């Protein structure tokens, strides 16, 4: 496959895909094209979008690549959604930060850090698929252990957990004034 065709096909794939596409997934679809070639074409696309300053960017996220609207246009994109995205409360963010940095962690352990009951917050985070149950802890009562999800990485634009922001940075990222990551179309119903 020629370079230009490869880039065109990659664009179509990123466009139509619901989530980020990993190089492995791309390799499976583009049979016969070398992994090296795919990655270099993707990187070419990334810099082309960046340079063109147009409406979308190709972003490295959650171990793969995903097309997203340019953050400078968030203000207008938000108007597409009738309901304003729910603001993430401080309680939610703190709990999320604790889970992110301390995973895997039980609810009792989160509560020990925050000093308050986190039942409702944990339920909300599970529902929004930002955290998940990863195992059971081997202590009496065998409580659940929680960890973050790929959606968590997507929401905060993180390549992987080693790039975790500080709580303060997370607050900035999740706060409504733009840039607001929640305003991005993450293929997730708000």
């Amino acid at each position, binding site marked *: 496959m020629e370079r230009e065709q490869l880039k065109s096909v990659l664009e179509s794939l990123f*466009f139509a895909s619901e989530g980020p596409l990993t190089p492995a997934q791309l390799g499976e679809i583009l049979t016969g094209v070398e992994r090296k070639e795919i990655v270099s074409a993707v990187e070419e696309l990334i810099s082309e979008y960046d340079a063109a300053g147009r409406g979308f960017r190709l972003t490295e996220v959650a171990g793969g690549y995903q097309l997203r609207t340019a953050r400078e246009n968030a203000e207008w994109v938000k108007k597409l959604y009738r309901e304003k995205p729910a603001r993430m409360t401080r309680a939610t963010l703190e709990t999320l930060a604790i889970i992110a940095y301390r995973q895997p962690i039980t609810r009792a352990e989160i509560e020990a850090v925050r000093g308050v009951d986190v039942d409702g917050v944990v339920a909300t985070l599970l529902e929004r698929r930002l955290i998940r149950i990863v195992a059971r802890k081997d202590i009496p009562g065998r409580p659940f252990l929680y960890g973050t999800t790929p959606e968590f990485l997507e929401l905060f634009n993180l390549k992987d957990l080693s790039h975790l922001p500080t709580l303060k940075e997370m607050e900035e990222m999740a706060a409504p004034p733009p840039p607001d990551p929640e305003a991005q*179309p993450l293929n997730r119903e708000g």
Partner: protein
Amino acid sequence: MTSKVELEIFEGPLDLLLHLIKKSEVSITDIPIAPITEQYLATIELMGDLNLDVAGEFLVMAATLIHIKSRMLLPPDESDLEEDEEGDPRAELARRLLEYQRFKEAAEELARRDILRRDVFTRAPEPPEEVETGGFESVSLFDLISALRTVLDRLPKDSVHEVALEKVSVREKMSQLLDRLRQEEKVVFQSVFEGASSRMEVIVTFLAMLELVKMRAIRIWQEEVVGPIVLALAAPLEEVQQKIATEEIEGDGDGA
């Protein structure tokens, strides 16, 4: 034969008539009513033999054709002229056929457009409810039945009476056909029936073929308009064999 085959590519009496007219290379507005009626009747009789669901509409059309044929034999008289414009008893049928043909063509035109989730995709995260138009690329059931008639005609006359003593099941024929397709990749329709010694065996083989089409296990098409009809696997063999196996447990499917 208990298996009842209903195919989606089976589009009714008007479709069958158009098929016969096209095959005979005659004009819709000047249908040679006697031979077309004969072919029509032979086809629905064969469909009946095959246990295909011959809907009531086919029989109504048969009656219409016979009626028109009988009217054609009579010299046109005054009363006829009043009933049928210009005295041609075929006029109304021709009108219906032409109208049906227009929409058939319009449907084909629609199928050639850039169809959403077949040719083009949006970012909408809806479940992919894609469309496919398999019926168009492949040959129609009527083409197959015509081909089957040719095969049956070629059978030695005396063998027609030789009732199949060995009971060949449709399922066995399905497996045989799959085996052959695995080895040969592409098989010409007529050759599938080579070695069949009785009408029964031909019909069982044909039914097996239809079953496989219905399961979308094989594809049947013509590479050129007048070319031979060919068969090939349409799905991975294991998938098909598994499907045949699971279909054996009829009505049990929901349990798992």
